[in-house]
């Protein structure tokens, strides 16, 4: 008889079920994210008619970053593996879609699914050797993969159009799928963001999610507890890559013409990392908050201080990293728990 059964004061015959008893609190904890996600989806759909086309495009971009940051969080936040080449999968998804639509005349929806599969397989392939590396070494190896992939795409002009880019036909008789328009892309990115967040919610509360967190804290201990760390890491990396690839695919279709330099831009990776770290890595809510605030701040700076907006963005990153090194959601959680709200005290955490 297990300890849980004694605690409940029940006489249970036969094997005890491993799942914890369903209480009102645990039920609430389990359903709240889904209720919030559904509310977010409805809010997104309801918001759309209120927006001008320019605002609609802006919100689409923000939603894209919500999806990208949440996908990065799976490998970078939960498992603690700093993938600094995540943009490789973004670019791979975009170029995969463009190539399939241009050369094979595939429909966009099929190409998007296929691109996600390609990104998954590619990540599993490079992840197998590279996930044995830790810390900076993993970060740099993945960065090398992304940069190398960009060079390969640039140097296959017959297939990819090289540095001059490739254009997906979206109008006329040659177009496999018609361009979706501002409304269509808004909904596409909304659904993508909701889908990626749904994956994150599932991962956060599943055995796999706990395995990834255990790997983050101490990989040797996790392996000693019977976690197949190689499998868990590779699945997280490949899953994150597949989601990123799908988002990259949608982005390529929205932009119509894509270029290697922009599709494999390191800045996209860095934005994902900034959003996750500032929002709070390893949580579901953190990357969403981070993505929305950083994307809006970046756009606001771009419109109001066009000449120096990257300069100001860099300054903001520095200040935010020094003041909130553990991210917004983690700071709030710890501050409420310990009743200590001083940011200066927070700075002492990682100071020498």
């Amino acid at each position, binding site marked *: 008889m297990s300890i849980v059964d004694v605690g409940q004061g029940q006489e249970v015959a036969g094997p005890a079920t491993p799942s914890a008893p369903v209480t009102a609190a645990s039920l609430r904890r389990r359903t709240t994210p889904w209720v919030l996600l559904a509310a977010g989806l409805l809010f997104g759909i309801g918001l759309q008619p209120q927006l001008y086309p320019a605002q609609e495009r802006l919100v689409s971009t923000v939603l894209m970053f919500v999806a990208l940051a949440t996908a990065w969080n799976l490998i970078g936040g939960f498992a603690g593996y700093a993938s600094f080449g995540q943009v490789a999968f973004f670019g791979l998804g975009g170029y995969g879609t463009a190539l399939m639509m241009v050369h094979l005349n595939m429909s966009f929806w099929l190409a998007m699914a296929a691109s996600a599969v390609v990104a998954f397989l590619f990540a599993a392939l490079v992840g197998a050797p590279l996930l044995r590396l830790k810390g900076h070494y993993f970060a740099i*190896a993945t960065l090398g993969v992304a940069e190398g992939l960009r060079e390969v795409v640039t140097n296959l002009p017959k297939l990819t159009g090289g540095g001059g880019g490739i254009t997906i036909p979206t109008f006329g008789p040659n177009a496999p799928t018609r361009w979706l328009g501002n409304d269509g892309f808004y909904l596409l990115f909304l659904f993508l963001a909701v889908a990626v967040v749904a994956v994150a919610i599932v991962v956060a509360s599943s055995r796999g999610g706990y395995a990834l967190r255990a790997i983050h804290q101490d990989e040797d201990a996790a392996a000693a507890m019977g976690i197949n760390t190689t499998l868990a890491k590779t699945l997280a990396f490949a899953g994150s890559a597949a989601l990123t690839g799908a988002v990259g695919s949608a982005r390529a279709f929205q932009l119509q013409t894509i270029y290697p330099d922009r599709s494999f831009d390191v800045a996209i990776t*860095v934005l994902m990392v900034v959003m996750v770290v500032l929002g709070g890595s390893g949580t579901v809510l953190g990357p969403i908050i981070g993505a929305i605030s950083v994307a809006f701040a970046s756009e606001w700076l771009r419109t109001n201080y066009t000449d120096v907006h990257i300069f100001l963005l860099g300054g903001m990153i520095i200040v935010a990293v020094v003041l909130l090194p553990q991210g917004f959601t983690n700071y709030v959680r710890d501050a409420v728990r310990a009743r200590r709200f001083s940011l200066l005290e927070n700075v002492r955490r990682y100071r020498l």
Partner: protein
Amino acid sequence: MAQFLQATVYGLLQGGLLALIAVGFSLVWGVMNVVNLSHGAFVLAGAYVALQLHDAVGLDPFVSMVPAALLLFGFGYVVQRYLVNLVVNGPIFITLLLTFGLELVLVNLMLYLFTADHQSIPTGYAEGSLVLPGDVRIPYGRLIAALLALALTVALVYVMRRTRTGLSILATGMDRGAARLMGIKARHVYALTFGIAAAMAGAAGAAVGAVSTFSPADAGRFTLFSFVASVLGGLGNMWGALYGGLVLGLVQAWGGQLLPGTLVNAVAFAVLVLVLAFRPQGIAGKPFYASRLEV
């Protein structure tokens, strides 16, 4: 054959310069476990200091290596002491993001001050070449740059291994707690390390300005070269950056002969990924640094 020899010579000269670019990066990474993404911006800052001195008082870029190094030493010291030290104990994302933010600020400051134009620092003699038998040409500018870079790298190794300051830096890199117990001020030593790294970058930048063109957009490229050279050579060995720089220079020169377009860059990254996957301690590094997690 002559073409191959020419490429080899060119690769070695370029490799010497790459070694000087990378040595500071490798030092900061090995001692503090900080990957300084703003290193390329420091190199460019050195190049712009040399350019300004050349335009203002007609100083030779190779002489400007000294003021550029001094200026960047001060800047690097202050940045580490009052900024990077605040987060140096954090997880790697934090230091990577902080130095990336710094890179954005520095590069855009340079864009604002000096525009995005490609610049170079003209000298009277750099265009001429030393012709060796077999029609192999060695441009004087590149030769001087490579020799100075080699001399500076050797001097840095000497300082690290033979002086009290250098030994206290290495000791802090090996075990900060023990070093502090021995009376070493870790904050000061870290700032000193970063300052020295920035000074080396500044000197390298002045030399880069003398032999090729540069613009603020090159910062990321210099940082990546430093990455590759440091990893190839291996951390924890002061000669690592030199080996890594020479190998990278040769790979680029030979690849440029054989491969079309910019595919040579892909080869450089492929070499990087392969080395990381199969020999993470690099050519000459110690396994201690390869296996080390965040301190």
